[in-house]
């Protein structure tokens, strides 16, 4: 025993394959912590995606249930949701799997302007860097989950998707494309005046205040990238299925993820899949509010009993899959 080795070389740095080390840069080039080696770094900017495969179930939920999960000042526009899986093959954050729910919504901004966009009450991803690159600057509600999404068989006619977290499967669906049109589409589809809305909360390390912001991502490309929608869809890649074509569907809430229980008895109207390129530009803040906490408010935050562990504190030890 006692055999020891430390390999200090950086061949990829010497060959210019990666950016200069954070430790050797001006601080304006560090956009996240840790400052010695951030979880996402400035080589993700601008954030572009190529040949991602989007597979969106068109889902209708009870309007009251939806309103109950959408926080003020965001207002629900209609109850047709997108329930989407994505295989991201080439991105500035590396490849990853993703899931989200998008609800057509509006927000009256601090200046009185009404912003229209798809609001995300739920998102799941398979990799840490895009989770925190989404959560921290923008407010995307990303969590980590096991996500599988495939198209296979003759002409890729069959599809299947499954998502699991902490031992619970909370969504799964499979079926066969018929290429018949879905009876509904989300309101925001293809519209350049509808962007994306997120609710960002940044809490001070002392927990003495939290800054609440609604952030807005426009749909039109920033000027430096040309013109048009920042989703560049390949029309030849579109496949569709109706609700009848979705052979099996399972949705459930769990103690760790409320989505299924909160949305209730939804109707799946079908599936729209397509391949696309994407740019995610910086976001703007359209509404902001700071919530201060007095000493007397801290009692409401201390929900647990020290050293007593409940059902939400017990699950299998997670092993990050990125081995």
């Amino acid at each position, binding site marked *: *025993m*006692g055999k*020891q080795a*430390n390999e*200090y070389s950086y061949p990829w740095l010497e060959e210019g394959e990666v950016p200069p080390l954070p430790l050797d840069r001006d*601080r*304006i080039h*560090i956009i*996240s912590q840790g*400052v*010695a*080696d*951030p*979880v996402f770094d*400035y*080589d993700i*900017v601008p954030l572009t995606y*190529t040949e991602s495969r989007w597979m969106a179930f068109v889902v209708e939920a009870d309007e009251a249930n939806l309103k109950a999960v959408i*926080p003020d000042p965001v207002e629900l526009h209609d109850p047709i949701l997108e329930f989407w899986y994505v*295989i991201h093959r*080439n991105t500035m954050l*590396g*490849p990853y799997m993703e899931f989200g729910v998008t609800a057509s919504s509006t927000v009256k901004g601090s200046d009185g302007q009404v912003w229209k966009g798809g609001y995300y*009450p*739920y998102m799941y991803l398979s990799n*840490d860097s895009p989770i925190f690159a989404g959560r921290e600057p923008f407010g995307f*509600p990303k969590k*980590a989950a*096991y996500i599988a999404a495939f198209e296979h068989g003759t002409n890729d006619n069959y599809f299947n998707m499954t998502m699991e977290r902490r031992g619970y499967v909370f969504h799964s669906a499979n*079926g066969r494309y018929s290429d018949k049109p879905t009876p509904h589409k989300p309101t925001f589809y293809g519209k350049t005046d509808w962007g994306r809305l997120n*609710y*960002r909360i940044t809490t001070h*390390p*002392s*927990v003495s205040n939290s800054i609440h912001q609604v952030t807005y991502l426009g749909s039109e490309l920033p000027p430096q990238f040309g013109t048009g929608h920042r989703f560049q869809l390949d029309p030849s890649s579109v496949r569709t299925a109706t609700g009848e074509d979705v052979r*099996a*569907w399972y*949705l459930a*809430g769990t*103690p760790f993820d409320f989505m299924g229980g909160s949305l*209730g008895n939804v109707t799946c109207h079908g599936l729209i899949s397509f391949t696309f390129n994407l740019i995610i530009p*910086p976001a*703007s*803040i359209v509404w902001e509010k700071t*919530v201060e906490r007095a000493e007397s408010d*801290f009692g409401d*935050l*201390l*929900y*647990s009993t*020290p050293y007593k*562990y*409940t059902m*939400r*504190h017990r699950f299998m030890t*997670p*092993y*990050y*899959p*990125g081995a």
Partner: protein
Amino acid sequence: MPSHLNVDTKYWTLTDEIPNPPVERDIKTWIIGNPSDPLWDIDVLPLTYTNSRWSAFVVDVPGDARQRLCPNPPLTIWDGEDAELVEYWYVNHLNTMLGPYLEFGVTISATHTDSKGNTWKAGYYPYMYLTSDSAVDAGRVLGFPKKMAYIRVTEHGGEKGDDYFGYSMTRNGYLLTAQQGKYDDAPVKPPYFYGKTDWGKFNMKVITRPDVASSEWQLTYLPSKLPPAFNVEGHRFQIKNELTRTASGDAIDWFAQATPFDNMGAEVKVNEVKGLISFTFDLIIPPAEVVWSETYERPASYRGYATPYQYGLRQQFPIHQGA
């Protein structure tokens, strides 16, 4: 006919173990996104741990390498007794308010003195890795530099049943570090901050605006003594001394390397592996204090490092299926 099942019940509400979602509560109790289903919630607080198993390799690291990892301003490396000793630690967290997870970190003794001459002494974390999304995010709110990684921790075999140990950490297909060996229970000198209640913990939090126009750096400080409300005297780490094991440097096989995604293996220069100290403990993590902050502005022309739609070495690795 297809089979579609929506489990629209919330069976976990049969007991009162789980708080209602933030959208159903006073806004002062919302800590992080998303309001309908946050990544972690107030049932995490107070944040306590029971019977966690800490395994700390003590390594001799030269002063220039330590100072490079401690951003100055505002930090200066400790130049007193045992300044060269750095903690390189794994933890198996069995029972916590964030659930079970595995963790890794590096701790360097450092100080910060403000303009009024007040000095804080603490262990500073340049690197941390965990296996759980909630624990990563809850830590990042306080400024911990957490990423996710695949971590292994094993103690087993021999006369005492836990004489042999093996540790490793992998991310995006690369082994970052690995250790193995056998406890010989030889004395190992710990880093200077061990057991001292006037030494806390430092972290550097980075908050970037959604439009990336600026980033605020906050040096956060966690004291070792608990606030009076916790009604616990002494150190917030409560060590169970009877379960401590040690190994000398000669009893340890050691490997570390940098990867294109993680620079730790090249930046933590190891003059000598001095030994290993393993112990079992209970812990409370209170809110943190911000003792220094500075904001770095970016010009409107800021473009980051990447070229749109061109993917480099850091953007290509095996796709994750998720935790």
